[in-house]
């Protein structure tokens, strides 16, 4: 029997996401008339503001796009800047950048799993009531979050807007005692991570599937690609990062201040689940074990399980961090590579005109930065495409499939289901709206 329900759902300012978005759903006599995720964040015009600034300032400025993934923006920005300048970073620099990226992924995933997603799965409005009912769990979450923040602070000065990671390398390299300190803290985090896995495995995720295309970095080596690689998809696409515009194919939709994207079909998804779906065989054995126990297999088509993929990646990141630091302790850090900020402005890093791209897997998915610079290193054009932008279109297609499947539920249940769906993508809305229809005026 068809459900003849009429529904008007209007969630203003979805909570427990980064930034401002609204959900709008209209169902009339059982048929879906409107189903949208409206993005209502005030634009900040970062790309416009970058014009006329030194490419060496780009990292400092673009890390301010987002407080949650400021290290990810930093790394994508540095990669684009160095690509434009034709500068090749040292092996040690690359190792430390990978470490930084793992720190941020771990930090962000823990924040999302515990503070943003878990309250829904435990039936409360936020982590605050959990302080009473699940005190140990809240304490563990805050402890893990703090550890991530502390190791980040040791490596780059702070997590929110890192200080020492710049184009060319690091202005301060970790000392022996810093490596010991970070290693001790990360090894000490293992029991908490095991408890996190145990807890997460008891959570029940909604049963829902939709076939879509997943996009993430891919590579030919055995490393789970986060910092470097080509761009690949589950539909068999593989392209160089320079061709990112052919991946994202951005288009404007009138109801959203953020642009939408598509590749081989109507929409595609990025993020932890996309990475898992493309690269799961390269995960650390401990992370693979969690995937097996959780029953997660590629290609997993349930978007709610993005949170489960984040859990698996958290285990992977923690183990990778420990491996990288142990390696650095064994090989020793070459402090001659410590650079002074602004050396560039004295011509120590050769500057030439160029066009450079950066593609980095940040917690919410693949992030692109692209700068075009003149022969003095001044930015002429800038473009950044944010993971959440790339997911918006996919979220709307999920919503369109989910709402009809839930019509026998109450309006409150449907609303919560939609909010949970949006939150599962861990959207970063304040990022996504700064980057819309950027046109390179020179083209």
């Amino acid at each position: 029997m068809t459900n003849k329900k009429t529904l008007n759902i209007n969630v203003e300012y979805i909570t427990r996401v980064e930034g401002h978005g609204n959900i709008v759903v209209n169902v009339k006599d059982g048929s879906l008339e409107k189903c949208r995720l409206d993005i209502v964040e005030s634009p900040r015009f970062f790309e416009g503001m970058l014009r006329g600034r030194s490419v060496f300032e780009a990292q400092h400025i673009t890390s301010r796009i987002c407080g949650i993934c400021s290290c990810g923006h930093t790394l994508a920005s540095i990669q684009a800047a160095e690509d434009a300048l034709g500068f090749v970073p040292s092996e040690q620099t690359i190792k430390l950048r990978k470490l930084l990226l793992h720190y941020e992924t771990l930090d962000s995933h823990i924040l999302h799993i515990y503070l943003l997603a878990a309250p829904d799965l435990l039936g409360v409005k936020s982590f605050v009531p959990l302080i009473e009912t699940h005190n140990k769990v809240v304490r563990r979450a805050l402890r893990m979050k703090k550890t991530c923040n502390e190791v980040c602070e040791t490596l780059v000065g702070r997590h929110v807007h890192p200080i020492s990671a710049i184009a060319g390398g690091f202005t301060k390299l970790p000392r022996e005692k810093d490596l010991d300190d970070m290693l001790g803290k990360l090894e000490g985090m293992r029991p908490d991570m095991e408890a996190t896995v145990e807890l997460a495995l008891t959570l029940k995720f909604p049963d829902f599937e939709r076939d879509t295309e997943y996009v993430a970095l891919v590579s030919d080596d055995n490393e789970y690609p986060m910092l470097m690689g080509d761009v690949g998809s589950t539909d068999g696409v593989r392209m160089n990062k320079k061709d990112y515009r052919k991946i994202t194919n951005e288009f404007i939709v009138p109801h959203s201040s953020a642009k939408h994207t598509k590749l081989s079909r109507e929409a595609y998804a990025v993020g932890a689940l996309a990475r898992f779906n493309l690269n799961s065989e390269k995960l650390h054995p401990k992370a693979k074990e969690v995937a097996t126990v959780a029953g997660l297999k590629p290609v997993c088509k349930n978007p709610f399980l993005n949170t489960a993929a984040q859990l698996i990646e958290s285990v992977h990141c923690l183990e990778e961090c420990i491996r990288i630091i142990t390696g650095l302790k064994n090989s020793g850090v070459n402090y001659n590579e410590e650079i002074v900020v602004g050396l560039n402005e004295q011509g120590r890093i050769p500057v030439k005109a160029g066009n450079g791209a950066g593609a980095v897997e940040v917690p919410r998915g693949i992030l692109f930065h692209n700068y075009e610079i003149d022969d003095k290193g001044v930015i002429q054009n800038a473009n950044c495409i944010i993971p959440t932008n790339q997911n918006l279109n996919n979220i709307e297609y999920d919503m369109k499939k989910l709402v009809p499947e839930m019509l026998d539920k109450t309006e409150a249940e449907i609303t919560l289901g939609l909010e949970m769906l949006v939150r599962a993508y861990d959207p970063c809305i304040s990022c996504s709206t700064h980057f819309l229809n950027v046109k390179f005026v020179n083209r």
Partner: protein
Amino acid sequence: MKRPKVGFFDFACCEGCQLQVANFGEELLDILGAIDVVEFREVMSEKWDGDFDVAIVEGSITDKHAVERINRIRERSKVLIAYGSCATIGGVNGMKNAFDLTDIRKYVYGSDYKFFHTEMTKALHQVVKVDYFVNGCPVYPPELVKVLKAALQGIPYYVPDYAVCVDCRLNENVCMYEKGVACFGPVTRAGCNSWCVNNGNICYGCRGIVSNPNEKGMKEVLTKYNIPIEFVLNKVNMYNKCRELVEGGEDDE
């Protein structure tokens, strides 16, 4: 004693300063024992209809909708704290003010630019009365605790009004000018424990300029190290462009 009702709000910003709150770790639970956080959209679904004893507001004011919203928050709040550079001085959002607003909208949004309104970026105190300032991009957590304590006791908090160099010297950093790099420590408000210079970077002036900057001294330093003034001004504007705003600044349609 009844726990004071506290709300967190954000305008144009990266929400990184709010995130600093989550980085307190288990100490956060002690803070939450002293205050009653009734609204904090980034991490809570709970909403509050009443008045706030303290409103902690992150972000800059960049459109008419934001002006209305901050006025409503002000009306409902006994104490309003401007939280982070975007709120206290306009911060990086202010760089936009150096461009023609129609031009920058067209650059970012192309032919659809008319859907995307914006006004000259303003710091909170350029729109409503602000009772306390927590400077920095991001805020320095120990200072947040100090300001919160002062606000809850109803006593003033004085933002240090001497240069970052004072802290920097105490931290025994080699002066960036000695390394041949221009730095804004000499004119920037202290209170961050010279966070950036400790980590090998320069001070970018994110806490705002001291109320009585030693212009003569700064000029002498720049002359001594042969650094053009335009170069320095351009860098200062990364955070401090909004200081130039006059009442009723230019808006766009």
